[in-house]
């Protein structure tokens, strides 16, 4: 079978969507001839011309603001924020407009647009290049938040983001861009809002999304070799959230650890922990633990491995799940 990277899958999704739907346009900083700093838009200007994939002036509020207008007038824009800290200049446009337009016009004006944001660390990047900002978007009512952890999901979720009428913040785990995967086009990706059990297990559930998924899977492998069976759930979409899959897993295992790269305080991991604690209360044999980035600014490359949730920290948290009571 053909091998494809996550970045390549995204590129293919954009290309296929642009072929299928004339209204799809791609723009942002360096997405044209350069193909984006991560090459996700590689070749699109060449295939579709300057009018469908183009560079803009360097202004993120401008990019998102213009996307709003184009979406109001018949297009389906896909914009790229170069790194996730560089989406912050667009925060007002995203929170006050992208998220609210459908609602404030009672459905009369919809904004079918996608804001692609490379996110997370693990690439040895310098300051402002490794943030995880999913909590800001997930907390904002009116935004859908998708984040793939595999090339297949990257393709499927981006295609589905490009079919609905609601805006999607599409978070791409930078460190997985170059991970290669066999490509099996016959596997369809389910609609947004469906988490997936990436690895079945019986003793505890690791709940993760995006860049944390492979780490959780690694942890599960190590745990297995130590005789503990961990189930790994990959959320795929943070909004909508799949309570059903998550709770079914925790109901089965009775224990849960949430794994996420972002600082833990008031985060998506907090939400997951709170929901699971509430909804699976009677099934839980131990408190839900969180293994997240610390509540510090993302550190310089030399400190990255200390900061990021890794296999050891996950296994420590699993060890803490009151097994002595079993």
């Amino acid at each position, binding site marked *: 079978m053909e091998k494809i990277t996550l970045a390549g899958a995204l590129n293919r999704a954009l290309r296929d969507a642009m072929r299928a739907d004339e209204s799809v*346009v791609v723009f942002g900083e360096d997405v044209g001839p350069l193909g984006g700093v991560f090459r996700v838009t590689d070749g699109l200007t060449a295939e579709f011309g300057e*009018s469908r994939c183009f560079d*803009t*002036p360097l*202004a993120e*509020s*401008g990019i*998102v*603001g*213009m*996307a*709003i*207008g*184009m*979406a*109001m*007038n*018949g*297009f389906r*824009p896909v914009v790229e924020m170069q790194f996730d800290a560089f989406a912050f*200049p667009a925060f*007002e*446009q995203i929170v*006050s*407009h992208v998220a609210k*337009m*459908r*609602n*404030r*016009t*009672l*459905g*009369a*004006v*919809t904004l079918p647009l996608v804001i692609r944001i490379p996110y997370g660390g693990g690439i040895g990047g310098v300051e402002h290049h490794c943030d995880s900002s999913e909590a800001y978007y997930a907390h904002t*009512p*009116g935004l*859908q938040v998708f984040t793939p952890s595999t090339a297949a999901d990257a393709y499927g979720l981006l295609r589905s983001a490009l079919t*609905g*009428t*609601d805006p999607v913040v599409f978070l791409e785990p930078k460190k997985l861009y170059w991970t290669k995967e066999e490509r099996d086009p016959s596997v369809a990706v389910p609609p947004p*809002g469906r988490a997936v059990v990436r690895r079945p297990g019986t003793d505890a559930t690791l709940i993760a999304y995006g860049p944390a998924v492979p780490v959780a899977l690694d942890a599960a492998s190590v745990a297995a070799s130590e005789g503990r069976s961990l189930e790994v759930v990959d959320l795929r979409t943070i*909004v*909508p*959230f799949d*309570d*059903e899959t998550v709770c079914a897993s925790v109901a089965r295992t009775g224990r849960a650890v949430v794994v996420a790269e972002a600082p833990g305080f008031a985060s998506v991991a907090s939400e997951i922990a709170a929901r699971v604690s509430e909804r699976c209360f009677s099934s839980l044999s131990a408190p839900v633990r969180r293994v997240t980035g610390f509540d510090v600014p993302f550190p310089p490359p030399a400190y990255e491995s200390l900061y990021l949730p890794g296999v050891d920290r996950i296994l420590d948290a699993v060890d803490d799940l009151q097994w002595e009571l079993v």
Partner: protein
Amino acid sequence: MTRDPDHLLPSRSPVQLIDEQGVAVSGDRPDFPSPAALLDAYAALVVGRRFNEQAYALVRQGRLAVYPSSHGQEACQVAAAQVLAPDDWLFPTYRDAVAIVTRGVDPVDTLTLFRGDWHTGYDARAHRVAPQTTPLATQLLHAVGVGHAARLRGEPTVVMALCGDGATSEGDFAEALNFAAVFRAPVVFLVQNNQYAISVPLSKQSAAPSLAHKGVGHGVVSERVDGNDVAALLAVLTGAVARARAGEGPQLIEAHTYRVAAHTNADDPGRYRVAAEVDEWIPRDPLTRTAAYLRGTGVLDDARQAGFDAEAERVAAALRAETTPTTDPGQLFAQVFASPTPQLREQAALVRDELSREVDA
């Protein structure tokens, strides 16, 4: 970069066609509006003024949550709407209700937001009038997007984007001008410089020779105009719209006017400006000046005036007749997304349950 700065800079003083006494001062300009156009504009001015007064009164009666009046700025409001073709778009702020009404939106629907009802009361797509925008200058970028979209499809649409003097200080203002210029988007940016951003006078807002001078740094053709002279506004804006439609790119127009009323009813202008300053602007009123000119040229007579007044009263009566909105709890959750997430469905059920128990109790 070949654009000639001289071509981009505004004229040394604002364009005026009819002076404060109602006398034509540049009657020989080829773009001087026709008597019919001026009469139309005057009719809309009369309605607009009455609309402003009535809305303000409704706030005092507690029937509107808030109203930012364009009293004194009606010439800008009317001209901005009247120079547009049906397929053009208008992007108004919270202060531009009169422009929206002039564009043909139902006056009662126009006030939906301020009535405390659901945010936007008219069909933005049908009227090609964007929802009124409060976060300052943000809508200018949307206008660029709408214009660029039309241009990509080869449609002759022009977008009229409104903002105030204060809003020109926001980063989004500069980004909008820049994007529009780079993409040659058919957008006319009309800055209503009413001298104040709430309490902050223009002198604290900018040290520029004029706000129209903000165009050249983006390669945008700029002009300034007497914002209380509806004839000058019609002439200058018609030209700008025509150039934008012809593919000459965005246009920046600064209209010099004055916010005669408070910022909103909640504001207390006595804290930051003296009454004498306001008094100076009364003789420059856009209505009296236009009426004087039209009477002087024999276009306006008592009968016509009576007709306009009657229309204005009809609009005012409609505003008064409107009652407070009835709420439908389902609307809280219905339009967050095309179809509610499971989480929203749970929350909606919670509200339904709570309300049903209230009814039972």
